[in-house]
């Protein structure tokens, strides 16, 4: 397993890869934040079927930075790995798309779905039949209630609780550290800088 990433995300990925018994060799290429956008995959040599690569980039730019690196690696023919920590508890009926990372102590319940490239932090919980879209970042201890849904390119801050059947649209950041109920439309941003009612994308950006 080759991990290409930055800071915390790269260390999280490395820890999972080393904890898994099926990974004989783990290598890490650490990128400085300013080098992520311009990373040239030719530096990795030719793509091979034996080595899986994991793009471990943090939630920068609503996870678009991770998505960009993933796209470059795919275009270059690399096989993208999935990292699930042995100490994560994932129900057999839970489904995981390519490039997912699930950290130690996380729980993914029956019928839950985790989309492509999403990173689930330590101690998080994805409830029964809940759905988390592609390119999301769930910080430590995030709880997604049963049948709740989260769109793509979403960042949920530490300790966030999304109540049962709550809905979060695409391209959102919710970092209130509290229980969120109801519906958060695409382009909703609630953070320490913008507490409730938060900031909101206007029409065109929501449709982009």
């Amino acid at each position, binding site marked *: 397993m080759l991990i290409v990433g930055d800071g915390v995300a790269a260390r999280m990925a490395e820890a999972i890869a080393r904890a898994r018994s099926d990974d004989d060799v783990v290598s890490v290429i650490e990128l400085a934040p300013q080098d992520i956008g311009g990373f040239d995959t030719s530096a990795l040599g030719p793509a091979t079927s034996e080595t899986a690569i994991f793009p471990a980039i943090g939630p920068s*730019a*609503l996870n678009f930075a991770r998505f960009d690196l993933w796209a470059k690696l795919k275009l270059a023919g690399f096989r993208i790995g999935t990292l699930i920590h042995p100490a994560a508890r994932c129900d057999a009926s839970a489904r995981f798309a390519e490039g997912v990372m699930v950290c130690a102590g996380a729980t993914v319940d029956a019928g839950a779905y985790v989309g492509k490239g999403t990173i689930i932090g330590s101690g998080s919980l994805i409830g029964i039949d809940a759905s988390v879209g592609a390119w999301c970042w769930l910080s430590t201890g995030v709880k997604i209630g049963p049948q709740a849904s989260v769109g793509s390119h979403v960042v949920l801050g530490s300790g966030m609780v999304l109540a049962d059947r709550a809905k979060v649209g695409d391209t959102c950041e919710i970092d209130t550290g509290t229980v969120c109920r109801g519906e958060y439309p695409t*382009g909703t941003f609630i953070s320490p*800088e913008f507490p409730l009612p938060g*900031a*909101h*994308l*206007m029409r065109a950006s*929501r449709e982009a």
Partner: protein
Amino acid sequence: MRALLKAVDYTSADVLAAEQSRLFRRLWIVAGFRATVDAPDAFLSHQIGDIPILIQNTRAGPRAFVNQCAHRQGAIQLADHGQRRMACPYHGWVYGDDGRVKSVPGNEANYGFCASTIQSLGLKPVHLRQVGGILFVNLADDPLPFEEQFTSTFLEQLAEISSKAGDDAIFAKFESRYNWKLNFENVVDWNHVPFVHAGSFAPLMPGVQRSVLDERHASPPPQPDEEIPDDLRELSYVVRAPFEFQEWPWHDSVERCGPTKEYTNVFIYPNVNYVVMAGVIHLIQQFCPVEPACTRVRLTMALGRRTRKLPAAAAILWSQFKAEKRVINEDVAVLEGLQRGLNDGSVRAFHGAYEHRLRRIAKTYRRLMVPR
């Protein structure tokens, strides 16, 4: 030199009421970016003093109205922005492009209005004017001629800069515990930057650092009050300063109105600071009076008009918006502290030469505040 305004100008409800009639119901006030209402039925709503305003894109282009239903004065649009036809959410009255009532649900059963009565009812129109990509409204029945508020040079600059603003935008509003005038004075006062924003904004703005700290730029003594001009048109102006913005690949995906390493301020009297960063990020800061010691700050950030697909537009807007708010929070802390200290016994502020813009603003403000 003692400031021309007293503490009471920042703390009195009577002064605020006078400002409503003599400034905000008289002058042209920025409503927002034109591009954010480009779509059919797109709208912006706004509160200018105690008057709710609606800017709605109709088939005849953008129109402005008082955002109050002719029936029971409910707001036609409840949200700050969105895309929805002009229909009152309270009892369903629907309005046409000209603001006249188009239909009254259940008229025969519930209201019994004849056709001529319905035709006579409508939303109160508000004067609307577009300069480049910026929409202005004026609440007066007989608005001030535009050229009495702005110079032609300023309007040309504003049109050129703002015409590049696109429809990728993000919006937020929050309330701060200070008088609205303090916020406009603060953005005009460049000398606060190296002190208030020492750890955030200032290190990226080498021009401000130098001019503040270099003794060779010592200013001449301040002008006596009687020599300070009070021309309203001079209060809106454009300032460009070097700034260490980073070049990003996405900059090539939008139209630009200036170089990457430039920070542009467009001060629009009485209450708007329009900023352009790196020639590609447009930000309108509106300082709207709510109470003498309460200002509603409305922030709208837009990217330059897209020239190609920009899937990460939302992420770009959000990261820039957060960074900008952290800088604004530094100003808010200082201004709230200032406002808390104002009382009837406060002595007036003491101005130096560099504060000549503040003195012009104050002198013109006092002229405008004289009852007509």
